[in-house]
């Protein structure tokens, strides 16, 4: 049987030839993402905004009366609710954001939830409550701080680790690639106004993790080639390293995508946001490892002298091992 080769042998794509235009576009995308976050805002779910989200089934109806539900809940005077289909056609999720006036009142979310459920129960005889999330303004504020802290600490800790294992330029490069990934993911959430909640933070950390996988594989090869080809110009060496690891990059991204696709299509409704974010994040992360993490090393001044002190000793060990082997 002939085995599949996703990337032909001796592929040599000049990735770095267009590094400047790519960088310009990427930096513009990062700026655009943050601008979108600032103007459009993120569609915070109850985890971060406070308020309540009710999931319900209309047991006797083929389709949920979305418009009527919106009207019933809207008439309570807590602003216009977000009513979305959730799972089956007769299931909905109804989200009411905590009004600003009562953000300080820690029992407001609970009270509003009771009112919403009460009004729906009396209005629709086949209303069945499947679940609800009520988060007070105080708790949602804490979640928000914790999430920001988690992202920040994770990025710094990872950059520190890479600095220790490689050189400082690699740490900065990886950090920049992560910043790119996080920015673009936030930008996506701002454009499509997808619900941004605690699981989104989990998604972003997963994206960070897997983007970093790619970055490390490329960096590891760069380190190896820097020792191997002392005289090679850096852009050429970076291209070589990216090309050598390209087969792996494509294959791993592909396995991740095929594993996640069924979850996106057939998985639980509640996981759709998480899966979609990771799915899109894989593209962003793969791109950033090639186009953000690698070229930045040129500008940060990585050259054949990097890894020299480490190298002489390693070399000796390797030579000795080769002699023995």
């Amino acid at each position, binding site marked *: 049987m002939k*085995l599949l080769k996703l990337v032909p042998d001796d592929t040599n794509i000049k990735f770095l030839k267009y590094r400047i235009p790519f960088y310009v576009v990427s930096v513009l995308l990062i700026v655009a993402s943050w601008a979108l976050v600032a103007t459009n805002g993120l569609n915070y779910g109850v985890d971060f905004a406070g308020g309540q989200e009710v999931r319900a089934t209309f047991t006797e109806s083929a389709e949920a009366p979305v418009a009527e539900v919106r009207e019933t809940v809207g008439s309570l005077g807590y602003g216009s609710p977000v009513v979305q289909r959730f799972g089956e056609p007769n299931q909905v999720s109804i989200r009411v954001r905590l009004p600003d006036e009562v953000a300080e009142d820690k029992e407001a979310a*609970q009270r509003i939830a009771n009112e919403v459920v009460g009004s729906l129960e009396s209005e629709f005889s086949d209303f069945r409550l499947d679940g609800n*999330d009520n988060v007070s303004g*105080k708790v949602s504020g804490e979640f928000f701080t914790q999430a920001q802290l988690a992202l920040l600490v994770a990025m710094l800790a990872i950059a520190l680790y890479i600095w220790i294992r490689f050189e400082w330029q690699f740490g900065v490069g990886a950090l920049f690639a992560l910043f790119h990934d996080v920015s673009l993911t936030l930008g996506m959430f701002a454009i499509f106004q997808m619900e941004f909640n605690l699981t989104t933070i989990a998604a972003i950390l997963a994206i960070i993790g897997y983007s970093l996988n790619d970055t490390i594989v490329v960096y590891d090869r760069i380190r190896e080639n820097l020792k191997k080809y002392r005289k090679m110009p850096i852009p050429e060496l970076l291209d070589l390293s990216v090309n050598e690891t390209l087969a*792996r990059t494509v294959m791993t991204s*592909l396995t991740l995508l*095929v594993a996640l696709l069924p979850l996106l299509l*057939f998985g639980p409704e509640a996981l759709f946001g998480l*899966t979609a974010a990771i799915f899109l994040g894989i593209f962003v992360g793969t791109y950033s490892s090639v186009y953000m993490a690698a070229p930045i090393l040129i500008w940060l001044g990585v050259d054949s002298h990097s890894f020299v002190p480490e190298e002489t000793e390693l070399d000796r060990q390797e030579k000795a091992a080769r002699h023995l082997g």
Partner: protein
Amino acid sequence: MLDFPQWRRIWLWGLTLVACLAAVPSFFALTGQDYPDPLKATYDQSVNLGLDLAGGSHILLEAERSQVAAQRLETMEESVTAEMRRADPRIRIGDVSRRDGRLSFMIENPVDVDRARDLIEPLTTGAGLTGQRDWTIRVVDGQRMILTPTEAGMDMAVNNAMETAVEVVRKRIDALGTREPTIIRQGDNRIVVQVPGLQDPGELKALLGQTASLEFKLVDVEASAADTQAGIARPGSQILPGAPGSDYEGATLAVRRLGGIKGDTLTDARQSFDPQTNEPVVNITFDSSGGQRFAKLTRENVNRPFAIILDDQVLSAPNINEPILGGTAQISGGFTVESANNLAISLRSGALPVDLAIVEERTVGPDLGQDSIESGILAMGIGSLLVILLMVVTYGRFGMYSTVALAINVVMILGIMAILNTTLTLPGIAGFVLTIGAAVDANVLINERIREERKRGRRVVAAVENGYKEASRAIYDANVTNFIAGVLLFLFGSGPVRGFAVVLVIGLFTSVFTAVVLTRMWVAMWLRKKRPSDLHI
């Protein structure tokens, strides 16, 4: 690298087997099948299902530190006035104030100051480790005594209140008869309550939201109706609102602040019906000391009205027609059967020492959870098949090894989760799928490297050996960084998101074990047996 002596092979297989067997009960639990009894006797530790999968309610309760502070001040004021009245000769005090969180009062005769101090000092207790007291006593201007609560004393009081609150919450939930509730104190002033498999948390919330502090206070009959309505209390009195549903709903009533008794010394409380009106009521029974105090209160105030107060709201204000000496009383106040029953449960389990507010609630119906498990397992199955197909088509025999490793990996994660008694949540299922996609990365790295080494002309064994060796570095670094991200997600995340982090982190370890160690053993065994001259990779 490719040397696997027999003891090492046995050890690796043994480890794999143990981790996989540990997953058996969890497998039955997840697929909703009955776990056979003979197996149950030997090993029955299954992974916990998070509330988002099992269905149930997660409720976060919070107490207010300022409320504890206010209560302490009030109790201290009562104790001080009682002590001063009881002193022989009596010490006269005036101008009592609780402003700024301190209790201050004037001692009318300056010669009594030292005597007062001697009497008040025993009312304070030690707090903290440094020999601090829970209150500091200061005398200013020779006559004014100021009692200030210390920080250590407040910490201790909040801590005590929360400990009692946890106990009360536990008793109330037990009274509902739900199965396996989890009640944990969180931080300084919070309690997490998790009750699995509850369809309607309404009753639970009603029970937890009720402080159930029952008081009997004399009605201030001299208060003018206009003042009471305007909310102006005479000195020594306070204005309380009526409870919803009672005769006083929407109205207010003036009661004497001190001199009442608390209903915290009950031995029993039952829902019942009033024999005359057939209205739902709650019958309470005092313990002996409470009964005596109740008898004294009613005996000394015959023909005066007294208010029955629940959580600072007036339920009713009957006239005391005759002393009540039997130690029992009937409470009415516009109850429904359900609310009377809830009140009886709350009174039996004791009053909460502080009000608890529900600051977060997450409830998932049991059906929704089971649907999620089913569709999650389906997605996981299809995803695995696709990954397996891709790996085998790309790497042939080496792809087979990785897919067997992948299957073992998934089972091992479940097994280790069961052994560590962790919780599988809905995002945890996404974690599984993500791990399936990512676990093969190690194999992809190794296999691609072997391909490269062959292309460079290395012989089979050297190529395999180098493939594993050179790829290990990147695998190691990538896993450490992912571990950092996973641990931080666990530390900062909450509830379901933590479940995601748990699966990711355990998956990192099992992935390295299965994808690197196990496949290397299999490849080594195959190479030794067949001694192939070429690799089909």
